[in-house]
């Protein structure tokens, strides 16, 4: 698969809630495939930024473009978002995937069996989804997202509160998806996970873009004071 939605660009993205500025003038250009990790302390605007990129939230001003076109339904149908708390239908594991397959998509021929196998849930196909553990639920959400064959996959702290085995399983699937050409944009607080996965890092603080660097450069010598403090484990206010 070749990601045709690149470059992903935001131009002076602003979003306010009352007097509080949640996203402040974010201009960003994601040009390369691979895994982009968004980092930053709580309240930095990471989730909101991803929601804007995915079209779930509307910025007050600024522009978002995919492949030099303003975001539209075509782009949105080629993306998927995995939430921190997976939302699943009150049906069996298999039926959750069947629901996604039933949606009108450019390519909906993906096999449910293969999707479940990919995330190690084959044996739980007929289990009620609401009886799965946290890690299994998140893996099901990942399988569901990948069934859509998104060119861009967003993950909003999808591995938070999961056990190491589940995290490892999800990371393996993400690496494979990235190898297959899917663009991954991942929010995480886990510095070790960011080091394991990131090709580039986007660091936000107080709704502002502080840094956008290749992962190696970011972790070796962060340019911004906020990023340095964050990596040192200092509390950012």
């Amino acid at each position, binding site marked *: 698969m070749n990601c045709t939605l690149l470059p992903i660009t935001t131009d002076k993205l602003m979003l306010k809630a009352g007097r509080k500025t949640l996203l402040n003038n974010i201009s960003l250009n994601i040009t390369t495939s691979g895994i982009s990790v968004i980092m930053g302390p709580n309240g930095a605007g990471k989730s909101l930024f991803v929601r804007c990129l995915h079209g*779930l939230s509307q910025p007050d001003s600024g522009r978002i473009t995919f492949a030099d076109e303003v975001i539209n339904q075509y782009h949105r149908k080629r993306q998927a978002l995995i939430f921190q708390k997976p939302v699943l239908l009150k049906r069996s594991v298999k039926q959750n995937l069947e629901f996604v397959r039933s949606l009108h998509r450019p390519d909906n021929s993906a096999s449910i069996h293969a999707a479940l196998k990919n995330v190690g849930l084959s044996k739980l196909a*007929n289990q009620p989804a609401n009886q799965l553990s946290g890690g299994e639920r998140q893996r099901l959400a990942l399988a569901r997202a990948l069934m859509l064959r998104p060119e861009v996959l967003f993950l909003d702290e999808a591995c938070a509160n999961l056990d190491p085995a589940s995290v490892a399983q999800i990371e393996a699937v993400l690496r494979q998806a990235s190898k297959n050409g899917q663009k991954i944009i991942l929010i995480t607080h886990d510095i070790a996970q960011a080091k394991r996965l990131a090709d580039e890092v986007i660091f936000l603080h107080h709704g502002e873009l502080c840094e956008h660097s290749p992962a190696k450069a970011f972790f070796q010598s962060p340019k911004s004071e906020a990023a340095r403090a964050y990596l040192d484990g200092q509390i950012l206010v």
Partner: protein
Amino acid sequence: MSIFTEAITTAFSLIVNVDADLVEIIGLSMKVSLSALFIACLLGLPLGALIGTRDFAFKNTARGILTALMGVPPVVVGLIVYLHLSRSGLFGALELLYTPTAMVIAQVILITPIIAALSSQILEDLHEEYRDLFTSLAVPPPQALLTYLIEARYSLLTVILAGFGRAISEVGAVMIVGGNIDHLTRVMTTAIALETSKGELALALALGLILLLLALIVNFAAQQAKSVLSVQRYGG
């Protein structure tokens, strides 16, 4: 013999002897209430879904009106339907007054707000839970609505049962628009009211017990259906 013992004996006797009048009354009660319930579901569920899952002007006002209508006195509904169906009324030409159809109309007016208001709350909660996911997945609105109804099926079943309970136990409205005519519009509740007014308290209480039994059977059947559906859905 106390009146309760006599009532239980009478109820037992009516059931065991398959009293023809009783069978007719039960049949009409079920026919009227289930017809009203069916129509009220057709009207109330989409209305509840609309209010619960869509944003529009005066949404809170609509919800407030619906909630207020849940508590409307049945006799007032009966009176309004009576005025419209009586010979000089707007629909007098249809000659529906003192027919089971009039009773169905009155019950539909009574239970539709219940079904709409309760289902709107359930569907609103579900919409809050699924809104982002469905937007993310670009689920078309009709499919999203259908999914909400399927996902909320068990809670909605409880709502439907509440509507049935209101319909089967209602007396004021059906008495006014049905007239409690023997072999035509007499249902369980109007028969109980009649026997009470005649001083036949044991018979009235016996009919009351049978009505209670009927409501229990319907609820039990619905719960069983829910269990069976649940097993079928998860395949084991």
